[in-house]
């Protein structure tokens, strides 16, 4: 606690004034401050720096903050809309409320509708190959896209400039990937030619590491995968996961990896980025 054995450290002074220490430790620190002019002057300096920073921070932005009225009204409208949509977690409760025979009948009907819908989708998709691809390509064809890496160290991966992590796939390679997957005249808004193993985890610029990933039409889409990539990168750089394991996890089945490393079975649906919401660290 006491530095050199007579004075408080800067960290202890800050912890004290921020109210982050209590009990005997706080009493000791306060008693020392009362007795020690040197530490009191350092406390004064620290408070001065805090005041300068807060003044700078607030004066920079406060005058420019837009009024909140419009945003508040918009939020109210969106909340009302959200409240009208039943939450998926209410289903189990709904099922509990139904009599057993009716529950079975409802479940059978739901299964039948799902099967019929799937058959319809398949038939319809045969006429429109890209749509079939959208349905089926949340996970790449591992014969075409097994994943490929380049030799990198953890240091390389964790110090990689952002531009390299999100670098675009060259146009010629993109066309080649679409051809490999038999997609003719793809609509740009439907697909992102994505790295299976992201460059941020040592993925290579290789056709075996690229596939046309649905951007939004599929539940498990490119945005959801982005969240997994960020999470794995963070775990690797924090030393909580080794790089080969992260590469293997994302290459083998990224959806399973998502559920494991983000700790949720839920994906982006109504919210734009719920994976990050629920599993931010």
């Amino acid at each position, binding site marked *: 606690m006491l530095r050199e054995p007579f004075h408080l450290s800067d960290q202890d002074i800050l912890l004290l004034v921020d109210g982050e220490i209590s009990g005997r430790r706080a009493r000791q620190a306060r008693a020392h401050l009362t007795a020690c002019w040197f530490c009191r002057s350092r406390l004064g300096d620290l408070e001065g720096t805090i005041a300068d920073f807060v003044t700078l921070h607030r004066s920079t932005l406060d005058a420019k903050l*837009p009024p909140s009225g419009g945003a508040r009204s918009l939020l109210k409208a969106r909340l009302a809309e959200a409240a009208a949509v039943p939450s998926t977690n209410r289903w189990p409760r709904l099922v509990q409320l139904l009599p057993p025979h009716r529950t079975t009948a409802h479940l059978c009907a739901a299964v039948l509708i799902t099967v019929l819908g799937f058959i319809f989708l398949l038939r319809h998709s045969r006429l429109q190959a890209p749509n079939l691809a959208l349905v089926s390509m949340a996970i790449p064809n591992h014969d075409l896209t097994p994943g490929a890496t380049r030799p990198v160290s953890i240091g390389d991966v964790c110090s990689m400039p952002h531009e390299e992590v999100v670098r675009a796939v060259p146009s010629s390679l993109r066309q080649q990937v679409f051809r490999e997957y038999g997609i003719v005249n793809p609509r740009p808004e439907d697909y992102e030619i994505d790295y299976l193993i992201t460059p941020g985890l040592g993925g290579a610029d290789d056709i075996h590491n690229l596939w046309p990933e649905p951007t939004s039409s599929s539940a498990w889409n490119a945005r959801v995968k982005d969240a997994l990539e960020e999470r794995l990168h963070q775990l690797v750089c924090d030393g909580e996961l080794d790089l080969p394991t992260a590469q293997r996890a994302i290459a083998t089945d990224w959806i399973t990896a998502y559920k494991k490393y983000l700790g949720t079975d839920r994906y982006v649906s109504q919210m734009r980025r719920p994976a990050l*919401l629920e599993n931010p660290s």
Partner: protein
Amino acid sequence: MPPTDAIRELPFPASAGTGSSAKPSESECEVIHLFEQFRNPLLRYVVSRGLSFQDGEEIIQEVFLALFRHLQLGKSRRNLRGWVFRVAHNLALKQHSANKRTQATSDFDEALAQQQPAATLNPEEQAASSQRHERMQAVLRALPEQDRCCLYLRAEGLRYREIAAALGMSLGAVSIALTRSLARMGRVDEG
């Protein structure tokens, strides 16, 4: 500037504890109440992270819609201030990455550039103040990203455990980051 107990305790409505059994209208009112409390601090924080006010507003909408669902599902109500800042931080991070791809400009940088010294100062003092602010901004920009986030979150009144939860750090790391940042800021007038 330690936050007051009133802020620390976050006076959430008593009806809040029942989670999914709360009527939607109550949940909506609660979320709006929290929006009014935290909208400005959140907006300052996400804009200081390099986003435009427009992106910041959109993120805050998403934060509170997510909070609404969080409350509707009866999830934990502990440390909701930390929760909203954590969600905002992560959304800002994501948006920031997206903006880098499109090279969007930051309203924060613009605000810094346009900042004027207090009108009560005489011209000489204004010049000195302006130079000092520039030096402080340079120190801030040179800080590690995580240290800067700690400073901004602390400036918005978050306690160390809330900052730790928002940024995925340990309490000790928050304490060290704040001490280190303030030490650097404190040396702004040296040489």
